[in-house]
């Protein structure tokens, strides 16, 4: 499959500061790609380069195989949804939605029914004559989305579009955007710093660390197979066990235990970290690896219990499902886990 949007070796510097460095990224047609990363990692900058508001310092940006670096924003035809919605405060909801059609010279007779249909689809038809400041946050968000979609752009760029909404509305809008994506076959690049949002919505997630991609892959890949410490720690929660490679599939931990890990290809003697997710630590003795540990705390979390454990100098976190045998602080337990559940990367 060929790339629909492609960034080739793109860098961006502001003065002395390099914000994006040697970025290579391919997005397929119809894909939902999330850009996830901590604040300041360059996500907005990448979006602004795609939309044409910032020029890349070096490298090329291609859309459908053609370079678009020289095109101003208004010629790129990408729909952008900004975090604060950026609705036109002096226009009614209907005028806001009609704006992109007007800019494209669509005749008035055609604009009216299209705007009405678009607003009806998101249950905002009755608010067509209101001003944006007379709408709730969620309604404004839907207007912004409708305005960006009404002219059927090829690509939609969204910069933390749900950041200002409360949790319930956020989840509703996540479903709505997913649904639109599927139904209209849109290509969406979605910036967020909410990892659960990225995990639930995306076909693929690109995780950024200081202007570089730390890892890109499906939700399953980045969660179950983190390729480095940053990703393992950034996505979800994990236990990191530091050690030295003994033989291709074994790692000797700092606490003098050797564990079996998947065949990772690091040379014997190299320092590595082994990541194992809390929910993969078991209490039933199954799996190739064993660790003796003492429970230091049991924390009630509603649907599950969180166990804090000490194994020598290591602190571990495990997850205990409701209904499993009760555990108490001070108890010594044998944790076990499967080699297949471990990820190994350089320390």
């Amino acid at each position: 499959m060929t790339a629909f949007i492609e960034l080739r070796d793109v860098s961006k510097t502001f003065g002395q500061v390099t914000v994006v460095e040697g970025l290579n990224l391919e997005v397929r047609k119809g894909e939902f790609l999330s850009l996830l990363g901590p604040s300041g990692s360059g996500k907005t900058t990448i979006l602004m380069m795609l939309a044409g508001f910032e020029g890349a310092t070096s490298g090329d940006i291609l859309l459908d195989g053609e370079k678009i670096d020289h095109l101003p924003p208004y010629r790129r035809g990408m729909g952008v949804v900004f975090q604060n919605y950026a609705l036109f405060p002096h226009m009614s909801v209907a005028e806001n939605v009609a704006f992109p059609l007007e800019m494209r010279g669509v005749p008035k007779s055609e604009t009216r029914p299209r705007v009405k249909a678009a607003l009806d689809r998101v249950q905002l038809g009755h608010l067509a004559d209101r001003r944006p400041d007379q709408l709730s946050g969620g309604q404004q968000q839907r207007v912004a989305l409708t305005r960006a979609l009404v002219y059927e752009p090829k690509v939609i760029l969204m910069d933390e579009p749900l950041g200002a909404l409360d949790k319930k509305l956020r989840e509703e809008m996540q479903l709505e955007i997913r649904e639109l994506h599927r139904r209209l076959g849109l290509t969406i690049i979605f910036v967020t710093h909410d990892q659960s949002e990225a995990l639930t919505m995306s076909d693929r997630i690109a995780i950024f660390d200081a202007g570089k991609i730390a890892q890109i892959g499906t939700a399953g890949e980045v969660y179950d197979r983190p390729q480095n410490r940053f990703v393992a720690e950034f996505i979800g929660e994990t236990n990191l066990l530091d050690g030295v490679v003994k033989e291709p599939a074994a790692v000797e931990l700092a606490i003098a235990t050797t564990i079996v890990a998947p065949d990772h290809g690091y040379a014997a003697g190299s320092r590595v970290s082994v990541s194992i997710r809390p929910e993969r630590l078991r209490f039933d003795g199954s799996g190739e690896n064993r660790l003796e540990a003492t429970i230091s705390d049991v924390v009630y979390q509603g649907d599950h219990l969180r166990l804090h454990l000490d194994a020598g100098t290591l602190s571990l976190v495990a997850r205990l499902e409701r209904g499993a045998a009760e555990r108490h602080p001070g108890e010594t337990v044998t944790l076990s886990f499967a080699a297949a559940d471990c990820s190994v990367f350089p320390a």
Partner: protein
Amino acid sequence: MLRVAQAIFGVAAALFLILPIVAILPLAFTSSIFLNYPIPGYSLRWFNELGQIAHWRNSIVNSLIIGSGATVLSVVLGTLAALGLRGRGIPFPNLLRTIFLLPMVVPAVVLGVGLQISLAQIGLASSYLGVIFSHAVLCVPFVIVSVSTALQGINPTVERAAASLGASPTRVFRRVTMPLAMPGIVTGAVFAFATSLDEVVLTLFVAGPNQRTLARQMFSSIRENISPAVAAAALLLIVGTLLLALLAAYTRRRTAKTVEA
């Protein structure tokens, strides 16, 4: 206790500001030929005089011509300057802004002398164009200040949104920036017109006998023959200025509702 003191001080300050106005206004309706109290009877004869005596009537027409010209010129220049100062990539924006605002603080006498010399050089001394130009120099800073304030209130992502939706820079300006800056432009225009209306010092330097404005005419008539026509003219100026201020407040209110979002 403090509240009472505050109230008293507030009233005193307000009285201090309006008493001179209150003192002169009744004299506009006097039937006497002297500009002083007591008023023997009330009449509209001095308003009639303003309308009928040539030099008063001409000066009113002049004020309107020069005020309108100076307003148009300064609104165009001031708005362009405010837009330019806002743009990215302008070298030394703060220095430039200070230079643009200089006419507000430079003594009018200094400006007057300078303008008289310069206008004479280019053959515009004692011409309408020269006076309009001179007044505009004074008015531009007011326009820059009020338009800049309005522009600062515009969220730049709104303009970016317009561009992403397919609007070229000129269309972004026409459909988004300009309508959102309109309250500031109107306020600037009102300030400009009011400034031109009561400008005397510059006018003394650059205007010839044909460009006598109302303010200039009042100034000389109060020195030559103190007639209550001056009071009538003052009333006219005050009412005109108040109407303009109301107009500005009204447009601000109307647009503020839609701009606040």
